[in-house]
C-alpha cells in the first residue's frame, strides 16, 4: 500500500545548482530563505559595524557624513526586508507543513518564485552603493522631501522594495492557504501549534499592509519623476501625509517582525519546561488583539510632527493599550516556566533571554507611548535602544533560538551545545553592552542618525561600539556552529527534545522529501 502511494512521487530531482533554482520543495525553499537571511544579516551587520566604528570617538574618522547616512539607511532597510522578514518566512516554509501534517506548501511553484525574487531585489539594493552619489541615504523611513532630493539609487531602492513586497505578499498568501487548507484531519484551528497561529495572523498583516507600502513608494516615484506633488506643499501636497501612509504600513510591519518570534518562543519554552504552554487560548487572543491594535497606533511615530491634541491623545491611548495583550503573553510564558522541569539548552537560553529583553523593549515602548516623554525622546538614541531591544533581542534572538531548536530536525545532527552556549552568552552580553547605554544617550540628548556627536556623549558611545564589535564577531561563531551541524555531528534521532510534542517530531530527522505523505490524525 505504501509503495503504491509513493510511486508517483519518485520523480528525479535535479542536483547541484539546478536543484535550488528549480526546487518547489518547502524544505529546500525554507533553507534558501534562511541562507539568504543569514547573508543579509551579516552584510547589514557589517554596515552597523562601520556605523559603530565611526561613532567610536567624536569627530569624523572613517566615513564622511554622506556615506554615514547611506550606512544607517541601508542597515535598517536590509535588516528589516533582507534579514528578519525572510528568516521568518524561512521558518514558515520549513515548519508550517511539518507542524500541520501537510506534504508541502499549498502553492509550491509560487513558493519558488517568492524566494527567487529576493536575490533580484538584494542585487538592486547592494549595487545601489555603486550608483553615482552612493546608496539611498534618507533613512529606512524614506521621508520626503529629503527622499526627493536623492539620485538614481533612490529609484533603485523603490524598485527593490516593490520586488521585496511582491515576494512577501505571495509568500503570505501561500502561508494562509496552506494553513487554512492543508491541516491534518482533526487539527482544528484551536489545536494548531502557536507558531502556526502567529504566522497565520502575520500573513494577514502582510497582505494588508505591503500594498500600502507599495503605493506610498510609488507616490514617491511619481513625485520624483512624473510631476506629481503628493508630498510637495508647493503643489498642494503634504510631506506629513507620507508619514501617515508609511507608518500605517510601518507599525503593523513591526508586529510582522515580532509575532512569529512570539510563536517560536511559545514553542521552545514549553519544550524545555516539559509542560504545556500556559493559557493557549489567551495567547491566540493576545496575538490577534496585538494585530488588530497595530492598525490604529501608527501616528505614535509622528508625535513631533505637530498633530492636533485630539490626535496625540487618541494615538497615545491606543498605543498604551498594546501593553495589555503583550503583558498577557509575558505572564503566560512566566506561568509556563513556573513549576516546570527546566533544562537550559541553547534554544531555551535564547527563549528566556527574549522574554526578559523583549520586555525591557516593551517598557521603553510604554515610556515612548506617553506623548510628552516621546517628544523629548523622539529621534534620539533612546528610540534606537528601544527598537533594537524589540527587533534584535526580540526578533533576531528568537530566530537564533529557533534555528538551534529545529536544526537537529532539519539536518539530522545535533549541534555543538558548547559552541551554541558560547554563542548565546556572547550575543546576550554584547547585545546589552551595545544597546543598554543607548537609553542613557537618548535621555541625555543625543539625536539618532548623526555621524558625529557632542563630547558629553563620548564615553557611552565608546562602550556601545565595543559591545557592537563583540556582538558582530559572535555571529561568525553562529555561522560556524550552524555549518558544523549541517556537515555532521551526533545523530539527532526523530525527537531530540523529550518535552516537544508537535507533529514534526513524529517524522525522521531530516524529514522525508514530501514531509507527510499520509496525513497524521490529530485528536
Amino acid at each position, binding site marked *: 500500500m505504501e509503495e503504491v502511494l509513493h510511486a508517483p512521487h519518485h520523480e528525479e530531482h535535479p542536483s547541484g545548482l539546478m536543484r535550488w533554482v528549480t526546487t518547489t520543495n518547502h524544505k529546500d525553499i525554507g533553507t534558501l530563505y534562511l541562507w539568504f537571511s543569514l547573508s543579509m544579516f551579516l552584510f547589514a551587520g557589517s554596515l552597523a559595524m562601520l556605523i559603530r566604528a565611526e561613532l567610536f570617538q567624536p569627530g569624523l574618522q572613517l566615513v564622511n557624513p554622506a556615506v554615514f547616512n547611506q550606512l544607517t539607511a541601508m542597515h535598517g532597510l536590509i535588516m528589516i526586508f533582507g534579514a528578519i522578514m525572510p528568516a521568518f518566512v524561512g521558518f514558515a516554509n520549513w515548519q508550517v507543513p511539518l507542524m500541520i501534517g501537510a506534504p508541502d506548501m499549498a502553492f509550491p511553484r509560487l513558493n519558488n518564485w517568492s524566494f527567487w525574487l529576493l536575490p533580484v531585489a538584494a542585487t538592486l539594493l547592494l549595487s545601489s552603493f555603486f550608483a553615482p552619489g552612493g546608496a539611498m541615504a534618507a533613512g529606512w523611513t524614506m521621508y520626503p522631501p529629503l527622499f526627493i532630493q536623492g539620485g538614481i539609487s533612490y529609484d533603485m531602492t523603490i524598485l527593490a522594495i516593490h520586488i521585496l513586497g511582491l515576494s512577501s505578499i505571495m509568500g503570505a498568501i501561500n502561508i494562509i492557504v496552506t494553513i487554512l487548507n492543508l491541516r491534518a484531519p482533526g487539527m482544528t484551528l484551536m489545536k494548531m501549534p502557536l507558531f502556526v497561529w502567529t504566522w497565520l495572523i502575520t500573513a494577514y498583516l502582510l497582505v494588508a499592509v505591503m500594498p500600502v507600502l507599495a503605493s506610498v513608494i510609488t507616490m514617491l516615484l511619481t513625485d520624483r519623476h512624473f510631476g506629481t506633488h503628493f508630498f510637495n506643499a508647493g503643489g498642494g501636497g503634504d510631506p506629513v501625509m507620507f508619514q501617515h501612509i508609511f507608518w500605517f504600513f510601518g507599525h503593523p510591519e513591526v508586529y510582522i517582525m515580532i509575532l512569529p518570534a512570539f510563536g517560536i518562543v511559545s514553542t521552545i519554552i514549553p519544550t524545555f519546561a516539559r509542560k*504545556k504552554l500556559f493559557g493557549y487560548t489567551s495567547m491566540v487572543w493576545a496575538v490577534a488583539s496585538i494585530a488588530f491594535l497595530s492598525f490604529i497606533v501608527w501616528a505614535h511615530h509622528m508625535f513631533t510632527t505637530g498633530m492636533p491634541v485630539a490626535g496625540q491623545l487618541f494615538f497615545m491611548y491606543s498605543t498604551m493599550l498594546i501593553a495589555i495583550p503583550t503583558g498577557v503573553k509575558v505572564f503566560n510564558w512566566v506561568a*509556563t516556566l513556573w513549576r516546570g522541569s527546566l533544562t537550559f539548552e541553547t534554544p531555551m537560553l535564547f527563549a528566556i533571554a527574549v522574554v526578559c529583553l523583549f520586555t525591557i523593549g516593551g517598557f521603553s515602548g510604554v515610556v515612548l507611548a506617553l506623548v510628552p516623554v516621546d517628544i523629548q525622546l*523622539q529621534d534620539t538614541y533612546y528610540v534606537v535602544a528601544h527598537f533594537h531591544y524589540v527587533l534584535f533581542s526580540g526578533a533576531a534572538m528568537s530566530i537564533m533560538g529557533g534555528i538551534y531548536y529545529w536544526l537537529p530536525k532539519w539536518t539530522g545532527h545535533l549541534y555543538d551545545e558548547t559552541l551554541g552556549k558560547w554563542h548565546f552568552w556572547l550575543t546576550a552580553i554584547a547585545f546589552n553592552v551595545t544597546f543598554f547605554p543607548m537609553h542613557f544617550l537618548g535621555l541625555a540628548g543625543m539625536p539618532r542618525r548623526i555621524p558625529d556627536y557632542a563630547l558629553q556623549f563620548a564615553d557611552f558611545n565608546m562602550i556601545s561600539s565595543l559591545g557592537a564589535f563583540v556582538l558582530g564577531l559572535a555571529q561568525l561563531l553562529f555561522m560556524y556552529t550552524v555549518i558544523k551541524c549541517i556537515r555532521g555531528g551526533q545523530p539527532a534521532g526523530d525527537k531530540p527534545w523529550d518535552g516537544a510534542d508537535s507533529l514534526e517530531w513524529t517524522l525522521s530527522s531530516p524529514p522525508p522529501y514530501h514531509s507527510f505523505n499520509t496525513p497524521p490524525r490529530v485528536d
Partner: protein
Amino acid sequence: MGQRSHWPRYRGVALLAGVAAGPVAAEYAINLAPPATAIARQIYDLHTMVLWICFGIFLVVFLPMFYAIWRHRKSLGHQAHRFHEHPMLEMAWTAAPAVILVVMAIPTTKVVLAMKDTAASDISIKVTGRQWKWEYEYLGQDLKFISSSATPQAQIDNQAAKGEHYLLEVDRPLVVPTGQKVRLVFTAEDVIHSWWVPALGVKQDAVPGFIRDAWFTIDTPGTYRGQCAELCGVGHGFMPIVVEAVPPAQYAAWMTEQKTQLAAAKSSAEKEFALAELVAQGEKVYVANCAACHQASGAGIPGTFPALDGSPVVTGPPAAHLERVFKGRAGTAMQPFGKQLSDLEIAAVISYERNSWHNKTGDGVQPSVVAALRASLGK
C-alpha cells in the same frame, strides 16, 4: 542644580537604584537634561514616575521567573506540574495592567494639554529650518537672522582640539527674555527639520509649506543647547541650536543693538568693494553656507554635490554664477540663497568662489549688482 523642589526629590531615590540618576557627571549623563521650563520639569517627573512603575512591574514579573529558573530545574529533580490555564489569574493579569495604564494616562494627558496651549504668548518668533541652519525671525520686530554651526571644520576633522561646546555652538544664538511666554512658529524651506532643545522640553518638526507652533517660558537666565532631531541630509549632525535666555531689560537692549547693526550693514552694502576685500569676507560666508556640500576644498562630493573648483558655472560669466547662487537649483540641495543671504554676503561668496582653489577669474561681483538682480525679481 536643584532649582525646583520636586525633581531632586526623585533624584535621591533614583541614584539609589542606579537607573535614573540626575545630571551627576557630564560624561555619563544618564537622564533627561535638567529642566529649564515648567513643561520640561513635568516631562522629567512623568518619565521618572513611569520608570519606577516599569521597574516595579519588572520585579513582579521576573522575580517569579528567576525563582522558577533557580528552583524548578530538572537537574534538581523537579517534576513538571500539569496545570496550563487559570481563568481567574488570566483575567486578573489582563485587568491589572489596564488599571496601571489609566494611572499613567491621567497626569500625562494634563501635560499634553498644557504643551499644546500656545495662546496668550508675549513674543512670537518664526523658526525656519534650512539645510543646514536655522533662521529666526522676530515677528513684528523686523529682525531676522540665520544661525549656523560655529564649530570649525578642523575640529570635526580631528585637526584641532575640540572645544567645550563642540557641535553645540552657533554663530548667532536665539536670544529670548526670561519669564515671558515665547511662542515659536515653525516652518522649513527645503526638507523636514526638527527644532529640539531638551532643557526647554520643546521638540517640533519644521515642515516645508506648513506652519506648526510650540511654546516655552524660561525661568532662569542661561544658555540652552540643542540640535536638529530629524534626518535632513548630509549636514543633519551639524545643525545646532543655542537659546540664550536673558532678563527682559537685557533683551530689550539687545534688540535695539541688533537693529542699529542692521541699519549699518544696509548702508555699507551700497559702497564699492575691492576684490580682495570681498574674497576675504566671502570665505567666511562660504564656510558657513557652502562647505557642508561643496567642501572647504571646493571639490564637492563626487556624484552627490558638484565641485566648484574648475566648475564651468563658477569660472563662466559672473551673471550666470550669480543667478545660480541667488535662485538655487530646484529639486536639489542647492538652495535659493537670495532668500537667506544679504547682497554683500552673496557678492562676497561669489567673488571668493571665482578666485579660490584653481579658479582664477580675477573678477568678482559687487553688492550693487546683487541688489539690482534682487530688485528686478521684485524680492
